[in-house]
């Protein structure tokens, strides 16, 4: 009975904001202003690449990330884990169109947030917005950025796996996107955002996407507590092929993520493409070697995780460093992140799918490495890093990292504390033992007997 009661209550909390989305929609209808014919400055090649990149980045989350994550959990939680990423794609797509994009990229308020004047994509049409991208429709920039806003909270759910209440999760995602992601994106990429003004370099989202998700996952791991049986029972991945497929789609999709961040189909995009691939490769090899040397066997999950760690690490640097630097950044990512995952066990928190180890540590390394390896020879619009004679850049990067760590960590703690009081964070122990697939969704991943 109690379970039922709690469910009902939290049910309302989760449905409400979705209804809110719906209610807000008509308000935005006025925003649907006539679109002037696009100016002649639209470049079809750039636009083709940005649409392609946007599709690739969505593919990173669905199905890429949900396969990577879904394969790592136990069978009884496979669907629940997949659902996290899938529903985030839906939730954020609506949130972004209504107010998320405006808060992130709309006209600046005090360097820390966009205003609501682009609510409902008011004024965001086919014409380019030259402040962001002069050769593609403004909406193409908007939808490319949307895909980043989707994957970031989806990354965090690696820590929600196997125990979070679904209704709490829904509300968390909307709050986190609005109060953490949107401001952060504004700081770093928004016109007049304070970190952008400071000169922090983050080509494709090292701070905004990876540090923020990794650090929020740390806060979440602390707030959620351990899964029942953690440390005592084996909790091996139920479907590692899924995880390797996921890692592969992340790798492929990441070309959209990083090379797309050039916002054009040009030499800079090509450079980002090349260093992204190289860093992923170097990190996959280095994590594999770490496993081989330290554990005696080169593991497949290690290689896959290494590739992801390398992709994370190169993300902020991808528009500022050359291929050889990217090998170093990749090796650093593989070594540091695999070490972080090995150490985790001793720290005692249950970061189920290693979001902290891979995205938190990898993102931090990448942001700092950008301050080491960045070179104006690669991108004149960027800056030189320490190794190219400009130690100041490392300091700026450090400030950006520290600000992101603090903001995301504290913000996530606050949101989760409120939700804990309001509706609880975890499912009941019975539900956890039964698995979230049946208890929360009334479904099982693989059905019946094989003989059927």
């Amino acid at each position, binding site marked *: 009975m109690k379970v039922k009661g709690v469910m009902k209550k939290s049910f309302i909390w989760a449905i409400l904001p979705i209804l809110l989305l719906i209610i807000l929609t008509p308000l935005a209808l006025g925003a649907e202003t006539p679109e002037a014919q696009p100016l002649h400055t639209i470049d079809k090649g750039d636009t083709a690449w940005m649409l392609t990149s946007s599709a690739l980045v969505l593919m990173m989350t669905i199905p890429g990330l949900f396969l990577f994550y879904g394969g790592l959990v136990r069978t009884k939680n496979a669907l629940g884990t997949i659902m996290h990423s899938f529903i985030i794609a839906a939730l954020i797509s609506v949130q972004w169109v209504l107010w998320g994009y405006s808060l992130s990229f709309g006209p600046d308020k005090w360097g820390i947030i966009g205003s609501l004047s682009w609510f409902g994509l008011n004024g965001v049409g086919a014409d380019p917005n030259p402040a962001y991208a002069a050769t593609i429709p403004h909406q193409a920039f908007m939808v490319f950025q949307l895909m980043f806003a989707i994957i970031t909270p989806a990354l965090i759910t690696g820590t929600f796996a196997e125990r979070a209440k679904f209704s709490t999760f829904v509300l968390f995602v909307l709050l986190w996107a609005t109060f953490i992601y949107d401001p952060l994106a504004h700081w770093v990429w928004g016109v007049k955002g304070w970190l952008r003004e400071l000169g922090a370099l983050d080509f494709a989202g090292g701070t905004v996407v990876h540090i923020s998700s990794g650090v929020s996952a740390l806060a979440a791991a602390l707030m959620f507590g351990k899964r029942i*049986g953690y440390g005592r*029972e084996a909790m091996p991945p139920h479907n590692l092929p899924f995880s390797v497929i996921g890692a592969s789609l992340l790798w492929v999709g990441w070309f959209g993520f990083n090379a797309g961040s050039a916002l054009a189909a040009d030499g800079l995009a090509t450079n980002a493409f090349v260093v992204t691939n190289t860093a992923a490769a170097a990190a996959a090899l280095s994590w594999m070697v770490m496993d081989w040397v330290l554990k005696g066997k080169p593991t497949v999950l290690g290689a896959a995780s290494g590739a992801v760690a390398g992709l994370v690490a190169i993300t902020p640097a991808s528009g500022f460093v050359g291929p050889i630097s990217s090998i170093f950044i990749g090796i650093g990512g593989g070594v540091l992140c695999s070490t972080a995952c090995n150490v985790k066990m001793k720290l005692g928190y249950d970061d189920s799918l290693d979001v902290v180890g891979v995205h938190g540590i990898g993102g931090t390394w990448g942001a700092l490495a950008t301050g080491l390896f960045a070179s104006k020879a690669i991108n004149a619009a960027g800056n030189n890093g320490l190794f190219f004679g400009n130690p100041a850049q490392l300091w700026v990067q450090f400030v950006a990292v520290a600000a992101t760590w603090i903001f995301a960590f504290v913000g996530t703690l606050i949101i989760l504390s409120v939700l804990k009081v309001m509706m609880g964070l975890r499912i009941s122990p019975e539900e956890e*033992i039964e698995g979230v697939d*049946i208890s929360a969704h*009334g*479904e099982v991943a693989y059905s019946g*007997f094989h003989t059927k």
Partner: protein
Amino acid sequence: MKKIEAIIKPFKLDEVKSKLSELGIHGLTVSEVKGFGRQKGHTELYRGAEYVVDFLPKIKIETVVPDHIAMEVVEAIIASAHTGRIGDGKVFVIPIDEAVRIRTGERGEEAL
């Protein structure tokens, strides 16, 4: 010799195994089964369709033991598999005529 056959809740397997190890049971065989009993199943929803699933995942443990420790083993399983909630399962004791270890050809209690 007796074969002790226990149907238990899956998450209790590790506990039962440890308890049996403590008792000196060195061999057992485990399989995945579906149980139907007093414990109610759950409802599954797939688009229009709603199914009541009565078959619940259970684990079957089989271990062949000498007669004199059979009841001790039964008690150990009961103690470690017990949650007090419906669906905890059953233990059955079955007579065994002979046991052989394939590797050595040993027979009877020596084979266990």
